[in-house]
């Protein structure tokens, strides 16, 4: 790959900030959008120039964050409906090829997929992790 991929992350809470840091360590270019500038305090200082305060459903805010060049968008706010809206807007209006949304409710994941949005459900993943931990440490 000639250019580092540009990844826009909407929602800079625990998940968004953690993920931004991980991607940054792997050499990706990350941009973060959050309505609340205070959220950016969770990020390491060297990423402060990559933060954009504003409403992610406002196209002007997304443009400022570089959405038109983004290869990926990650919707990681705490709200499922916002994540769906952001992901769909980025995909349909800005042609971002990969949209991944955090979905809190495991039962909603399927409807997200119908919109071509990939999903990450922390609840379902934690559930599977606990089950495998139990299998490993099972008393006889």
């Amino acid at each position: 790959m000639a250019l580092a991929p540009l990844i826009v992350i909407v929602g800079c809470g625990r998940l968004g900030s953690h993920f931004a840091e991980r991607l940054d360590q792997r050499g990706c270019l990350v941009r973060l959008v959050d309505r609340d500038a205070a959220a950016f305090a969770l990020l390491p200082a060297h990423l402060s120039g990559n933060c954009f305060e504003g409403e992610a459903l406002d196209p002007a805010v997304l443009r400022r964050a570089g959405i038109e060049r983004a290869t990926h968008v990650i919707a990681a706010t705490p709200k499922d409906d916002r994540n769906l809206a952001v992901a769909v807007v980025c995909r349909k209006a800005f042609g971002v090829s990969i949209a991944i949304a955090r979905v809190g409710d495991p039962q909603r994941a399927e409807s997200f997929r119908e919109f071509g949005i990939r999903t990450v459900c922390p609840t379902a993943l934690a559930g599977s992790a606990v089950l495998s931990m139990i299998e490993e440490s099972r008393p006889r």
Partner: protein
Amino acid sequence: MRSLYVIVVGCGRLGSHLANLLSRAGHNVVVIDRKAAAFAGLAADAYSGFRVEGDASEPAVLRRARIEQADLLIAATSEDNLNLMIALVARKVFGVKHVMARVYDPKREETYRELGLETVCPTLIAGEHFLTLVFRALEAGGADS
């Protein structure tokens, strides 16, 4: 392999999901929550365990859930500090063999391990999964859908 006696504290999204999974897998499950309304998250076709309404930070409530018999306790409320406290009580006071606590803040995970508690951090696990999805897409050329 015998089935386990598992106590799940907190019947929110994660707690109810775990209770449903464990009960469906054939384990004996007791769910504790401060609010009876939370038990609505237990699926009628999956969950065949017990429900205890009460504050699990009170040992009497844990006793009502028969914690002395528990093989495993999972503290899955929405508060890190409450999970830590319940997990410690289960481990140190009641000697429950396996205790897991949900941790919201990834930075706390290490502290918990030092205390002998197993942790589940949905943020970390989800972060891993996001990374996998992103890099799989990049390797496939970035525009595979």
